[in-house]
Each structure stands twice: as C-alpha cells, then as structure tokens.
C-alpha cells in the first residue's frame, strides 16, 4: 500500500500541465485558492468553472483519479449545502415545511459554496496528480529561496522532505517485520483486552524507534564522511527549467483575476 509514497498521487502523463515547471504550478494554485473567493454571481462562477474544468481536461488525467480526489471532500460539500438550504434565510420562500422553510437565497448560496469547494478541490488535487512529491519539494526549495536571507534553512528543509519520503516505505516494512517477530514471540496485537493491546505497543515501538534512529545516525555519518556542508555552492541532479508555457500559464491566471474582478457584483 505504501509502494506509492515516492510518487504520491502522481499519475504519469505527458500533457502540457505535466511538463510545466513545478514552481509555476505552485504559484498558479496558490493564487487560484485566493481568487476563487472573488466569484460571487452566476456569471463569475460559470467563468471560473470553464477555466477549472478546461484545465482539468487539458491535463488528460483519467477521470477516475479525479473523482477519487473528490471523495474525501464530498460529505463536506453535502453538509454545507444542506446547512445553507435550511439556515440561510434570504429571498422569497420556495418550500415551507411549517417548522422550517427553504428560501431562494439558501439554494443559491448552497450551490455557490458547493461549486467553490468543488473547483478548489479539482485544481488543488490536479497539482499533486500531475507533479511528483520530489518535484514539488524542488519547487518549494526554489520558491522559498529568498527566505534564506532571514536565516530560514530552506535547503535543509527540502533535504529533510526528500529524506523523509525516502524513509517512509523502509520504516513501514520495518514495522511489519517487527510485528511479525513480536507475534512469533507471543505478542498479541489484534485480540485480547484493550489494556493488553496497548501494552503490546511497547515491544513494537521500542525496536522501531531504535532502528529508525540508527538509520538516521548512519545517514548523518555518511553525509559528514562525504563532506556535506549544507546548501551553499551545492549543485543539483534535477534542474528546474522555466519555459514559455510557464509564463503563459501565469498570464492566464492573471487574465482570470481580471475577468473575475470585472464580473463580480
């Protein structure tokens, strides 16, 4: 199940969106998350919808993967829609149950909010569907580089992310191994009273932590032995390249901002 840690949710592909610079994608998504709130009438929502669905289609990520990303947020969309249906009391009454009534304003507001959440989740999940975690790490490192001035360890932070991604599958395997080894010695992880099962944690956690820390120490030693001295003057295996399409994408986002400002009421 954890085989996919390194690639995360990434769906390999060769679309323009896949080949964009991760920095451009990160900037675009951040701006998008803010400007979604500009839309406040049918026209602006329609425009936002065309832009969002167009981008999703453009990425040529198969539909099932898109829908999978929507699943966790679905109940929130439903919940807020119902909340707005019954609790926003604006405009003429559409349905009267006696104890409560559905107003037109509630329906409109409910649909708007559902659309907003839908668009947000579509575009944000598109980022991780078309970019590997490693690429995003590189992008973050490059985008946050100015923070080095204020002594924020940008390079070290990106390195920690890469190391961590690399170690997750290893540690999961290790956990399974230790569980089997301790079960063979008679530890009960899945049956018995709760107190016993909580106690069974200790013989699992102690070896897990010891092995994890040993790995960390070995790696640190190996880094020192190879003369690791931090990010200063270090060259990279994967270089990020800003292409014409990245500038174009950001211009498109700029156009979206202007249009939303013009359309909002």
């Amino acid at each position, binding site marked *: 199940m954890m085989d996919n840690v390194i690639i995360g949710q990434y769906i390999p592909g060769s679309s323009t969106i896949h080949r964009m610079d991760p920095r451009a994608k990160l900037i675009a998504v951040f701006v998008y998350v803010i400007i979604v709130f500009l839309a406040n009438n049918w026209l602006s929502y329609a425009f936002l919808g065309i832009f969002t669905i167009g981008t999703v289609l453009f990425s040529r990520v198969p539909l099932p993967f898109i829908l999978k990303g929507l699943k966790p947020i679905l109940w929130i969309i439903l919940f807020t829609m119902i909340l707005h249906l019954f609790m926003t009391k604006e405009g003429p009454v559409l349905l009267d149950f006696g104890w409560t009534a559905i107003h037109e304003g509630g329906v409109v507001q409910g649909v708007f909010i559902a659309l907003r959440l839908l668009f947000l989740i579509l575009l944000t999940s598109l*980022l991780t569907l078309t970019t590997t975690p490693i690429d995003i790490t590189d992008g973050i490192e490059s985008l946050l580089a100015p923070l080095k001035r204020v002594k924020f360890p940008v390079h070290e932070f990106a390195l920690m992310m890469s190391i961590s991604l690399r170690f997750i599958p*290893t540690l999961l395997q290790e956990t399974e191994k230790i569980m089997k080894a301790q079960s063979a010695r008679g530890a009960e992880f899945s049956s018995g009273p709760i107190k016993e099962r909580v106690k069974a944690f200790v013989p699992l956690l102690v070896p897990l932590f*010891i092995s994890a820390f040993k790995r960390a120490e070995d790696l640190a030693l190996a880094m020192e032995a190879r003369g690791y001295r931090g990010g200063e003057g270090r060259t990279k295996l994967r270089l990020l390249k800003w292409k014409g399409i990245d500038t174009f994408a950001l211009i498109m986002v700029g156009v979206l901002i202007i249009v939303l400002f013009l359309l909002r009421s």
Partner: protein
Amino acid sequence: MKLKPIDITLAAVFAALMAVGANLTSLLVIGSVPITLQTFFSVLAGMILGSRLGAISMTVYAVIGLAGAPVFAQFSGGFGMILKPTFGFILSFILVAYITGKIVESNSSKKSYLIAALVGMVINYAAGTNWMFAAMKVWADAPEGFTYKMAWGWMLAPLPKDILLSVCAGLIAPRLNRTLSKTSRTIKKSAA
C-alpha cells in the same frame, strides 16, 4: 538557525515515523474505531527530539503530506488536504511537539512527562477544533446556524481514546528516551 546533518536526518526520520504512526492502525486494530496515533507520535517528537527539532520534523511531515505523499491518516495526502476541516489537527502537531518539548526540557521528571503529554493533547484539540470551525466559516461560508458548540460536539467522540493514548505517551516516552540514549550517541545531546 544552523542544522547539523544529524539534526536533518533525525527530523526527517521522525517525520517518516509519524507517517507510520498515522497509519499503524491499518496494520493493527484497537477496538473497532479507526484511530490514528498522530497525537501520540507528535507528543513523542517533542519529548525525544526536543522542542525545536520536534517542531521542524512535524512541519516536514505536514508539507510532504501536502506535496502528495500518502502520509496522513488512511493513507491520504495531496494539496487538496488543505481544504479538509481536519487539516488544523495536522498543523497543531507542530505546536504540540514544540510545547511538549519545552515542558520536558524545563523539567524531566516522570510527572512532567505525563503533564506534557496531556497539555499536548489539549493543544491538539483546541487548535484543531478552532481551525475546523474557522475552515467551515471560510471555505464553506457556514451560516449562523453552524455554531462553535457544534464544532466541539464533533470532537467529543474520539476524546477518551486520545486521553488514554496521551497517558501512554507520557509513560512510554521516558522509557524510550532512556533506551535510545543507551543505543545512540546523538539522542542524548539533542534531547538535552
């Protein structure tokens, strides 16, 4: 802020441990409720790595999850997670690790480990629930009917198991620290 290689690798490995802890229950089940050991591990991060490194490692955890690695509970991840109302809990782990670390650093008696673990849990709940409330207000424009009380009512269900788990963390952490300081040369330094 200067980070030595050992600081970098320890924080990275603890972020990976956190990913294991978030999904440990898919490997073993306690009761029938799906529980995560995230609070438990974030408390341990502060106690074992210390406040500064613990907080850094929890930040790394949150960011790799956002970058798409399936490290959050139920093997979820991705930038869309930022929209889930429960994202505040993931952010609160940073604060939890920092503050439990600070408490244990100032006084490392067994009792203070226990207090630190419980304080950590309280922070986790307070920050997480407030974030959830704010998220519903901002992302979903929740109307007046969605009250602050409703948000807290939501959180009452998992409370007993989290109290239990924090007590466990408080009891296990000194033991882990002792064992680790025997087997590793570095942990003593970074915990002190």
